[in-house]
């Protein structure tokens, strides 16, 4: 399965140009991390893929089907094949863990069955299995608002995986989590990708997490792809290009990590958990590259 994005553009009604023609292909079972400063358009990009945000130009093709050309029904059908994981988990807080996971199967049941919570037995069996995979055994009847951040993100992952998606879109999965939980979540995502043979596209601002877990890294700056390659190819100068728009490494602006416009609510801050230092570079570059 492949995702092909061609010349994707997004201009917000305010005039902010979040994406200036992004081309990207993701396929196989590789994990692609998209890095870039706040406001670079990472979130906008991911949201444009499944049209939670309507792109203003370009095409998004999944196995040859152009999502941007679909009508409402077609889009709903296409979205069933795209699992999405959110920064703030976006779980339905007042529902149980199981109900949240089964939300991933809504595209396959009627509204009436959904209302009665009567999902096919194989969906429920699958949901149980996935809950075990993500380490939430016996939690199915807990209400989500009783869970910790790490547990919530696992429910979020389970909800996306139960869709049996052809691709996983992951929007800043770790920025609300502590470093240790972040690592676990990232490992879980790459394992799922390998096991289920689906490509994963992850937005992430923590460069060291990206380097450690991703097979491939895409650097976004000001709505344009400025780097694409393996984690090993990511040097200091490329990081400078991604985070500061190609300034030579000597001229370090104090707050270069802040992007031009804060058009993405999700791209709040690049500096979180002390993972990325103020000049936007990885503070602790691991010597061994990707996994």
């Amino acid at each position: 399965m492949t995702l092909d994005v061609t010349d994707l553009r997004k201009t917000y009604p305010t005039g902010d140009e979040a994406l200036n023609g992004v081309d990207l292909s993701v396929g196989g079972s590789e994990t692609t991390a998209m890095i870039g400063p706040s406001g670079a358009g990472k979130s906008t990009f991911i949201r444009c893929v499944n049209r939670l945000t309507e792109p203003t130009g370009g095409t998004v093709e999944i196995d040859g089907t152009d999502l941007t050309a679909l009508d409402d029904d077609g889009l709903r059908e296409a979205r069933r094949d795209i699992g999405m994981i959110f920064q703030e988990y976006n779980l339905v807080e007042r529902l149980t863990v199981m109900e949240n996971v089964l939300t991933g199967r809504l595209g396959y049941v009627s509204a009436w069955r959904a209302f009665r919570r009567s999902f096919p037995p194989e969906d429920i069996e699958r949901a149980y299995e996935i809950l075990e995979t993500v380490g939430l055994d016996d939690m199915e009847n807990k209400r989500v608002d009783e869970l910790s951040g790490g547990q919530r993100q696992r429910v979020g992952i389970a909800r996306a995986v139960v869709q049996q998606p052809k691709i996983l879109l992951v929007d800043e999965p770790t920025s609300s989590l502590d470093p240790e939980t972040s690592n676990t979540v990232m490992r879980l995502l790459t394992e799922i990708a390998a096991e289920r043979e689906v490509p994963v596209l992850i937005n992430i601002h923590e460069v060291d997490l990206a380097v450690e877990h991703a097979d491939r890294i895409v650097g976004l700056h000001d709505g344009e792809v400025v780097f694409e390659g393996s984690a090993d190819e990511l040097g200091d100068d490329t990081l400078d290009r991604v985070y500061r728009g190609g300034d030579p490494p000597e001229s370090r602006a104090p707050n270069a990590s802040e992007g031009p416009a804060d058009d993405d609510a999700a791209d709040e801050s690049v500096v979180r958990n002390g993972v990325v230092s103020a000049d936007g570079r990885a503070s602790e570059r691991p010597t061994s590259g990707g996994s």
Partner: protein
Amino acid sequence: MSEVDVSTTWRRFDRRRRIGRFVGVLGALVVFLASWRYLDMGITNVETVPREINDLLTRMYPPDVAYTVEIVEPLIETLHIAALGTAGAVVLAVPVALLAAENTTPNAATYWLGKLIVTVSRSVNTIIWALIFVVVFGSGPLAGAVAIAFRSVGFLGKLLGEEIEEIDFGQVEAVRAAGASSVQVLLYGILPQVKPALVGLSVYRWDINVRDSTILGFVGAGGIGVQLFRAVNAFAWQSVAMILIVILGVVLASEGISAYARRLVR
């Protein structure tokens, strides 16, 4: 000593407010006097009021307990009107709230339609709605129930709409991203978030509606008001007193139930 301290600091922090308040009170007084003159009611008229009211109360005592038997049926009818009117209002209010909430309304036209429904419903008193529906359905409790429903739609639609505007839209988006239809998005993304408010508001409105249902009888829309009006016109003051006591009991009971139920839902 410290008393003076209290007063000076209070004054210093609050001088502008004090002036504002003074102007407010003065304005109220002027309007009060002007209104009094406009209504042209002599002071003598007012003087007799305590005596007349006292007279009325004396005639009400003792309440005619035997009369209770005759008011059981209209009382039940009143409760039916309140229950049915509230139920109808809840059913109608959900779509109205979705229209009147900025984040769920399809477009600007539907938004203003929602606001219009809410405004008209809320601005017209129950008894006026009852007047209208007595013309439509003929006299009887049906007109009353519909009147209660129409009055409550605005109340519920407004408050529920405000709740919907405050929901976390991320949860809605996540459900949508999984490929859910709009009905499913409503069921899984929006409804769970507003459910406590929906139940709480409905029960609260039911409580108000029990009170409102007691007056519908005056315009022929059923309920205990019919009996009360008849007793008043017959100057059967002891029966009137009994009806008032029963109404008081029912209203207090419904208030208690409503408060209890609202605490129960979280």
